[in-house]
């Protein structure tokens, strides 16, 4: 459906390098990256707003690298929506139809249809200056969808929207994708990828460093950068040793984690998700990787409570508010933590 072949583009001191990506028809692909990682530039290359220095862009097996923007039939919703301030919502949505010299009656019918689908019929006579972020997002979507794009590109579509409206907008994206629309969505927020993506790519400093399903990327990140993106806060530099057939990861002589079977390098990083560490007020029996520690911090988080435990190394642990109160946790409480070996992911090198 959409294929990027060895795309490179220099933009001042920044460079997109060797981008290879294939996105299937009807796929929801989320490209994750920090500000300045090159994700918006990549979208603009796909849309044709910039041309690559080298490489090719294919849409439906057609090479569109040198095609004019207006002939590509690729829809792009900008991060700040780029709604035309000199036109009403109706004028904005009808813009592409005017470009195609569509009959006035047909324009009215089409605009009414798309406005109905996105629940913005009541906004049609209003000017953008009077609209909220969520309303502007719907107008931008309607204006793009009315062109029946082959691919919909979304640049940070939830970044400027109130939390309460995000679910509504996500539902719209899911429905569009369910109807077969191929979507490429760029964001810095891994949670958007978790809730929307069929496949995820992580871009950093102009390179795509990992692609895969959300489960593959977030449970088996290829490096520390990707791991950080999936919200993992527990990283430990370790040396891997094999003692009598059992692999262990040793943290600078303080702690030692038992690992599952496998092939490990001499040294590297281990990562542990904060919701996979269990906490007890008394020493539990029958657990490997069981460590005694002291609570150093407790504060509310979106999952309930985030607890920091010093057990020779600092562990960030997510627990529910109920669990926190039943364990009667407070700062300086002594606790026991356990980590299942299968929750410990090893990464090569120190990156």
């Amino acid at each position, binding site marked *: 459906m959409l294929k990027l072949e060895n795309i490179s583009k220099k933009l001042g001191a920044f460079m997109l390098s060797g981008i290879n990506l294939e996105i299937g028809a009807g796929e929801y692909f989320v490209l994750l990256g920090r500000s300045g990682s090159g994700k918006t530039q990549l979208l*603009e290359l796909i*849309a*044709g*707003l910039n041309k690559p220095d080298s490489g090719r862009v294919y849409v439906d097996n057609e090479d569109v690298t040198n095609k004019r*923007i*207006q002939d590509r039939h*690729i*829809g*792009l919703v*900008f991060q*700040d929506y*780029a709604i*035309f*301030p*000199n*036109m*009403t919502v*109706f*004028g904005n949505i*009808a*813009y*592409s139809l*005017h*470009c*195609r010299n569509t009959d006035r009656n047909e324009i009215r019918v089409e605009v009414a249809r798309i406005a109905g689908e996105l629940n913005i019929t009541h906004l049609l*006579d209003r*000017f953008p*200056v009077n609209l909220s972020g969520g309303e502007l997002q719907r107008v931008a979507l309607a*204006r*793009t969808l009315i*062109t029946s794009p082959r691919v919909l590109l979304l640049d940070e579509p939830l970044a400027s929207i109130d939390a309460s409206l995000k679910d509504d907008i996500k539902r719209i994206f899911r429905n569009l994708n369910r109807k077969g629309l191929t979507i490429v969505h760029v964001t810095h927020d891994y949670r958007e990828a978790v809730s929307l993506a069929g496949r995820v790519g992580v871009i950093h400093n102009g390179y795509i460093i990992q692609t895969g399903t959300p489960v593959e990327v977030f449970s088996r990140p290829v490096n520390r950068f990707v791991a950080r993106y999936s919200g993992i806060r527990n990283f430990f530099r370790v040396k891997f040793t094999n003692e009598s057939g059992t692999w262990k990861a040793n943290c600078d002589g303080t702690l030692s984690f038992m690992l599952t079977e496998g092939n490990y390098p001499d040294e590297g990083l281990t990562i542990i998700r904060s919701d996979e560490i269990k906490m007890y007020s008394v020493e539990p029996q029958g657990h490997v990787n069981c460590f005694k520690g002291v609570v150093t911090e407790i504060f509310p988080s979106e999952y309930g409570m985030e607890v920091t435990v010093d057990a020779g190394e600092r562990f960030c642990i997510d627990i529910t508010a109920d669990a926190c109160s039943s364990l009667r946790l407070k700062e300086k409480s002594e606790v026991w933590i356990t980590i299942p070996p299968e929750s410990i992911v090893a990464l090569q090198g120190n990156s």
Partner: protein
Amino acid sequence: MSRNSPFTWVMLILSSLVLLFILAPLAGMFLRTGSAQLLETVNDNEVRESIWLTLWVSFAATFVFAIGSIPLAWLLARKDFPMKKIVQGIIDLPVVLPHTAAGLAVLGFISRDGFLGKAADAVGLTLINNPAGIALAMAFVSVPFLINSARDGFSAVPERLEKAALTLGAGRSRVFFTISLPIAWRSIITGFVMMFARGMSEFGAVVIVAYHPMIAPVLIYERFNSFGLNYARPASVLFIIVALVVFILLRLISVRRKETPLSPDAET
């Protein structure tokens, strides 16, 4: 900043002095001109014709030069090209030239030996001592105001809006006429008003190109030289009143555009 702080007072006093400097001579001129004198000047055909000539020639010069200045302003705002800074410097040149020198430069261009003069001569038009020549002299010194204001207006149009229009299937010219131009319109109108006002008040460049027919600044100068201050003053006051009325009207039009958004189907 406290409203009544000594700093505020100092700023207020200094500002008032500058305002007084601008207003006092004008107020003095108005106060010394009796209504009878003013009425007599209003009835003076020569004065009326000269004010009318000044207004329409300046307006025509602004209108005609806007046709080329707006595209130039867009290029300066949107495109990078070799020697862009030099081009910008050339545009600002007439503002810093002594206006009599600017008049001499225009005269050389439009006289029968000059490039434009020869071309005009070929179609039977003499530019010297002709409203067309006056318009060129006015435009020469005032067109930078329009170009610079329009350029700032185009620069302030977010490029994303133009890019969005392209992704929606618009061609470059449609993007210009439906997005860039309407959004930059206020700055263009401001530049238009500034160019018109500057052209209308031009004396130095025009007097070298055309003493006759007399535009208002030349007429005022001529009356002052020939008959003295008392005879020149009522013509000045009348010209100032007319210029102010026109200026305020044009400003009102541009402010109204600011407050009233364009029509829903602005792109059609």
